[in-house]
Structures are given as structure tokens and as C-alpha cells.
């Protein structure tokens, strides 16, 4: 049955990261800012080396992301007004330029264009 409630809206973009990770800082923070601006949502970063933030990061990764004992970073999540959370991207362990390519592909994706059309 089709949901006839109010259309859901993107609410917040979150990046789980570490300051020492070259896939995260500055790369993913810069792309994350751009993506958040496009979606007109705030950007939140959760630093896995900060005690309070790592608890939230671990929970987000465990529930919606790519969980491993020592999980990959960055991981990017989009939270929605209906409470749902989409995992968007996990860093490519091969090399930093590959993670950058993934960000660029995300920006030119049909998925992002469809979101902007909805908005």
C-alpha cells in the first residue's frame, strides 16, 4: 500500500571520520559540505577519536553502515525526516583518489538528481 503521508525530507548528513585519515580530512569533509549544501541539510561529523562522538558513530555504523571490528572510515549517512537512515558511501581502502572518484560519481548520480528534483 502506498504511503500517503507527507513526503519525507532529507534532514541531516553525517560523516563518520578521523582527523588522521586522508580519505576523511580534508577530502570527505569538503565533499560532504558540498553535498549538504545541495541537499539543504546540516552536515555533522562524528570523530571516532572523540569519546562522546565515537559512541554515536559506532551506533550509526552498526545499525546502518558497514560494521567490522575495526570499521572503515569515512562512512557517510543521510538521515530523513521519517527517521530512516541511508548509508551513502564508505571510503575506498585502495587509495584516496578512488574515494574521491566515488564522491564525484555520487554528485553526478541519477540518485542525487532525483533527490534534487523531489526537493
Amino acid at each position: 500500500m502506498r504511503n500517503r503521508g507527507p513526503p519525507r525530507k532529507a534532514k541531516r548528513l553525517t560523516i563518520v571520520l578521523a582527523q588522521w585519515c586522508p580519505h576523511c580530512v580534508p577530502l570527505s569533509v569538503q565533499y560532504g559540505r558540498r553535498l549538504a549544501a545541495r541537499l539543504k541539510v546540516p552536515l555533522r561529523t562524528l570523530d571516532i577519536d572523540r569519546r562522546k562522538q565515537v559512541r554515536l558513530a559506532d551506533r550509526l555504523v552498526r545499525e546502518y553502515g558497514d560494521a567490522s571490528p575495526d570499521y572503515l572510515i569515512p562512512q557517510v549517512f543521510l538521515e530523513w525526516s521519517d527517521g530512516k537512515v541511508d548509508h551513502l558511501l564508505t571510503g575506498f581502502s585502495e587509495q584516496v583518489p578512488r574515494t574521491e572518484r566515488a564522491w564525484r560519481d555520487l554528485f553526478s548520480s541519477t540518485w542525487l538528481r532525483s533527490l534534487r528534483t523531489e526537493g
Partner: protein
Amino acid sequence: MPRPGTLAPVLRSALASRGGKCYRHCDRPIETRGVASPLPGLWQVHACPSGVVSVTSYAERTRRDPTKAVRTVLRAWSVPPRLVRSWDLRLATRHGPELGRAAERFLGSTGPRRGVRVVYWRVYPTRGRDGIERRLFVCFRRRHKTPVFFVAPSTSRAAACPVCGPRERPGATAAGTYRDD
């Protein structure tokens, strides 16, 4: 009909990662090599010409987490098997939009039931009590049917494979050191 979990060419292409240099070892270009295994997905071993492994990845079209199966295969390929620790295996899910338009279109057309899951195995260098840094090496010589992963001193030019022994051609080019080519 392709085996479940096998990656279509468009996904293999999207996941292929070439280029890069051997980080903090020799600065020479990383070579990517595919490996066959009983698992249906795509293996890629990224290593420098000396055989020092940057990262090994396994990608499969599946909803399940293939980490356990990957660990089993890697342990069969490693000497000793305990080189493969759960801590060093990391999972990533690829959804489509971050893989380029062709892959996104392909995954979109086949339904959202199965994404692509990638397991990475990265072993960081360690320094023993003797102060010597050791790294993960791989040997691809055809004397064994599968790759052999082992740890040896980073500075070793002729790291001896524990299965087939040290190289026999001291004058061999670096690129040929770990192959029978």
C-alpha cells in the same frame, strides 16, 4: 547463467582500481592482480613490484556479509594462517550511485535486493623487538596454485616465500621477482 554472487563486467569495471604508489615502502607503482578462488566474486591484490601488499580486496554481489568466507580463503593462502586476523578485515557496501552512471544504472535495473559487498584485508607494518619493520608480502609464482601471503622484513629484496623458497634469479627484474613470467 552466471553463478550467484558473480560480478557483471560493468561492476568489475567500476570496482577496478588502478594506479597508486607503494606507500612508505618503495614508492614504485602498485600493480593490481586478480586471483581465482572457490568464491564467486572478484579478488584484487594490490602489491608493489617487490611483492609488498598494499591491500587485498574481495567483491561479491550479495546481501550477506562475506567476511567469514573471505577469512577462510585468506587463511588457506597465508603462512601462517594466523596472519589473517578478524581485526584486519573490513567491510564496505557499494550501492550504485558512488560507482558511476553505468554501474548505477545496472544495479538499479536489477533491483535493490543485492548490492555489492567488498571485504578489504589490510595488514599494517609492524616493528618487532629487534627494531626491524616487517610487512605483508605476496608470492604469485606458479609453483603453487594460489597466492601465498607471508610477512618478511620490509627491506628484504629477496623475501623468501615459505612455500617455494627464495627467488632463484638474483638478476631478475623487480617486476619478475614474484612471478614465473
